[in-house]
């Protein structure tokens, strides 16, 4: 049988929380359900003190239930206070979308770092998601990496809501601040020529500054690589480090163009490993960061 996100969060908390924490949360959710904003603001702040900050202990089964309840939902990094906070938000009356938006924005504007992480992850489960596309873009302008990652990683909303311009900026910024691309949901689905051009320019800047080029860049740039980009890839494929060679092989394999095949032939051994699935983007991301 399948569960709703609320049921899943309730079950997960029930497994781990103390009786007093559980009772506190129930009382607060009731108050919030009446539209009492002061209760929401205070309870949102006090959740870690009342219910703890432990990681949620989730099984494969739980992850599958989550993905079934809300496609794209990956609560792999969630903590128990985060689950409690999301339940509080889900208790808030939401018929009036404008009022709901104002209340959430108030929380965003006054949130500390862990709260912001929670809020950005919570949106995927809340109503009126379509009102928050500007908020997501605003969040990616942060210079706190963990907040950026709460939007970019394991979060289906950027893929679902962001304009192409905002999406491209998010991907470019991920590379810029040295965070992985692989956990971005919908990464391969939303590649586009403009993004590839930005990434290729970025690769050139890095070469000029004698700084390394992030290896995941080629995954997104390769499908639209121009002549110069292919030259770059050819050079790196010949002389780069092993991780770079693997990444370029994988990128070229997926483009299936004649030029790509010519480059791959110059190092057939790595090409074979890329074709056979022995190398994956997930492995590359894990080794790179």
């Amino acid at each position, binding site marked *: 049988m399948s569960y709703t996100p609320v049921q899943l969060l309730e079950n997960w908390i029930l497994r781990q929380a103390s009786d007093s924490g559980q009772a506190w949360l129930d009382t607060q959710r009731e108050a919030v359900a009446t539209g009492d904003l*002061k209760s929401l*603001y*205070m309870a*949102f*702040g*006090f959740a*870690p*003190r009342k219910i703890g900050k432990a990681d949620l202990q989730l099984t494969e089964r739980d992850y599958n239930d989550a993905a079934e309840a809300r496609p794209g939902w990956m609560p792999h*990094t969630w*903590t128990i206070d985060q689950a409690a906070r999301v339940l509080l938000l889900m208790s808030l009356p939401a018929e009036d979308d404008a009022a709901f938006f104002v209340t959430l924005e*108030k*929380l965003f*504007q*006054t*949130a*500390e*770092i*862990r*709260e*912001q*992480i929670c809020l950005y992850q919570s949106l995927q489960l809340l109503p009126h998601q379509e009102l928050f596309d500007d908020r997501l873009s605003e969040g990616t302008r942060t*210079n*706190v*990496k*963990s907040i950026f*990652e*709460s939007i970019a990683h394991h979060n289906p909303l950027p893929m679902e809501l962001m304009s192409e311009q905002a999406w491209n900026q998010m991907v470019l910024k991920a590379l*810029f*601040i040295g965070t992985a691309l692989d956990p971005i949901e919908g990464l391969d689905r939303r590649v586009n020529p403009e993004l590839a051009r930005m990434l290729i320019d970025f690769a050139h800047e890095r070469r000029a*500054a004698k*700084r390394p080029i992030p290896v995941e860049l080629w995954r997104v740039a390769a499908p639209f690589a121009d002549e110069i980009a292919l030259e770059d890839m050819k050079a790196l494929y010949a002389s780069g480090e092993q991780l770079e060679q693997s990444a370029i092989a994988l990128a070229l394999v997926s483009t299936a163009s004649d030029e790509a095949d010519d480059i791959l032939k110059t190092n057939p051994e790595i090409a074979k490993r890329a074709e056979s699935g022995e190398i994956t983007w997930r492995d590359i991301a894990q080794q790179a960061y």
Partner: protein
Amino acid sequence: MKFIDPHIHVTSRTTDDYEAMAKAGVAAIIEPAFWLGQPRTNVGSFQDYFSSLVGFEKFRAAQFGIRHYCTIGLNSKEANNEALAEQVMEIMPLFLAKENVVAVGEIGFDDMTALEEKYLRLQLEMAKEVDLPVLIHTPHRNKKQGTYRSMDIIEEHEIPPHLVVIDHNNEETCEEVLRRGYWAAFTIYPKTKMGNERMVEIVKKYGPERIIVDSSADWGVSDPLAVPKTGNLMLERGVPQEHVELTCYKNALAAYGQSGQFEESDWLTPEPIDQRTLFEGNSVLRGGQAPRVDKPEDDRIIQ
């Protein structure tokens, strides 16, 4: 030796200060919400300021190896703008429960007006509601009266003195503050409040119990190293090491530890790196700048 500076306004200080403080042994600091040198004209300025105290400044301090905590309150000077004060009181519940908030403060008197008293009382009640200690700012002018009046009011609200730090004391006020059972804090602030030679004499005279040393360093001519400098001067002038540890570290820990949000283990045994909050991996550096490396570099070269 490790130090706590339990009263410093680092929002107005530079990263050089953070580096110097960490090097001098300052492990944790508390930044009380106070005024910015000029009055704020709308509640949004307060909201953004409070947000920076619970968010970005905590993050920035961590970049330099310093644990940052804060107190949240409507300060006495700005309590005199009643329309604004009302709005600030409304947003305070959004901030008092944040994880690094260790007290309601700094609140108290400046001109000793009726409005200052009104908001002092309202905030004392708020502190009771959220179960937090209180940090009291005592006025520059008419200090003795202001200090005594603050304590009278706290007693009317039945807040026990062990939950209250009275700050900016001097030779004139500290005896009564200690006698009534409060924590007595002293601001080592050049030229105006208290010099550190005077501070050494106070510790020699009254002993270390419930005495707290801080810098209040802010946007004025002040010294973010005031606590370690005073601690070292005490040692040099024959104050026993354990008295230095109490006045420059342990007393602050005991007083603000009552919030449940201020624990030595936070900085002595920090939590293992956590991918979600990963301070080490975050950066205040602009793109491409190298992170801090702990070895001398050729400072003519900018990489």
